[in-house]
C-alpha cells in the first residue's frame, strides 16, 4: 500500500494532488425505511478481515504523511445511498458482498422492516498534496 502511494507521488508534478477514497468501515452503514429521509431501522457492519485491510490502508496513508511525502489538504466523508425494493433484495445483496457483514442489525421488529429500504454507506476521502 505504501508502494502504491509512493508510485502515485512519483508520477505527480510538484503540488499535484492525490485523491484517496475508500469505503469507511469505521462507521456502520445505515438502513432506512422508505427512502433517503426515512427512519433508520438498522445498521450493517463490516467484515472483520476487511476492517483489518482498511486499517492497513490508513496506516499507509499516515506513513507517507509522517515522512513528509504529502500534506493533507482536505478530508471528509460522503454517504452513498443505495435503494432496495425490499428486505429480500437487500439480503441477496449482502450475501454476495465482500465488505459488508452478511446480516443487518435491526433496530425494529420484523413487522416494521417491510417495503423499500435504502442503505447509506460511508465513503471517506482525503486530498493529499505532493510535497
Amino acid at each position: 500500500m505504501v508502494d502504491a502511494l509512493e508510485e502515485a507521488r512519483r508520477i505527480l508534478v510538484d503540488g499535484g494532488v492525490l485523491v484517496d477514497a475508500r469505503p469507511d468501515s469505521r462507521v456502520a452503514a445505515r438502513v432506512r425505511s422508505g427512502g433517503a429521509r426515512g427512519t433508520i431501522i438498522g445498521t450493517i457492519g463490516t467484515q472483520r478481515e476487511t476492517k483489518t485491510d482498511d486499517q492497513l490502508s490508513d496506516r499507509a496513508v499516515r506513513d507517507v504523511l509522517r515522512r513528509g511525502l504529502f500534506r493533507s489538504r482536505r478530508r471528509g466523508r460522503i454517504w452513498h445511498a443505495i435503494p432496495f425494493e425490499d428486505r429480500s433484495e437487500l439480503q441477496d445483496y449482502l450475501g454476495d458482498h465482500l465488505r459488508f457483514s452478511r446480516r443487518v442489525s435491526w433496530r425494529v421488529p420484523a413487522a416494521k422492516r417491510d417495503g423499500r429500504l435504502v442503505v447509506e454507506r460511508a465513503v471517506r476521502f482525503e486530498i493529499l498534496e505532493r510535497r
Partner: protein
Amino acid sequence: MQVSATASVGQLVPGGLGYLRPPAEIELAAYGVDLRGLRVADIGAGEGRLALGAARRADRVLAIDPDRSALARGRAEAKRLGMRNITFREGAAQSLELADGSFEVAILSWTL
C-alpha cells in the same frame, strides 16, 4: 490546483442497483478537485467508471488497472461515448510504467 475547502463533506449522494458506487460526476464533485485542463491518472480504475467521469472535465485521463477485461469494457464505453481524451492501460499501482511528474492529479479510489 483548485481544491475546494468545503465541497460536499457529509453529503448524501445517490446510487442505485447497478450503481453500487456513486455516479462519477457526483463523487468527483464531492472531492472538490477542479480537474479542468489537468492530466489525471486513475490508478486501479477498473472499467473506468470514475475515469470516464473525470474525462468530461480533464485535459486527458489515463485509466490503469491490472484487469484486462475491465479495461476492454472501459475502452468500449469510451468509444461509445465518443471520448478521445481517455486511455486505458494495463498496470499495477505498485509499479506504474509512467514518467516522473507527468500528472497533476492521481486518483486511488477503492484501490488502497
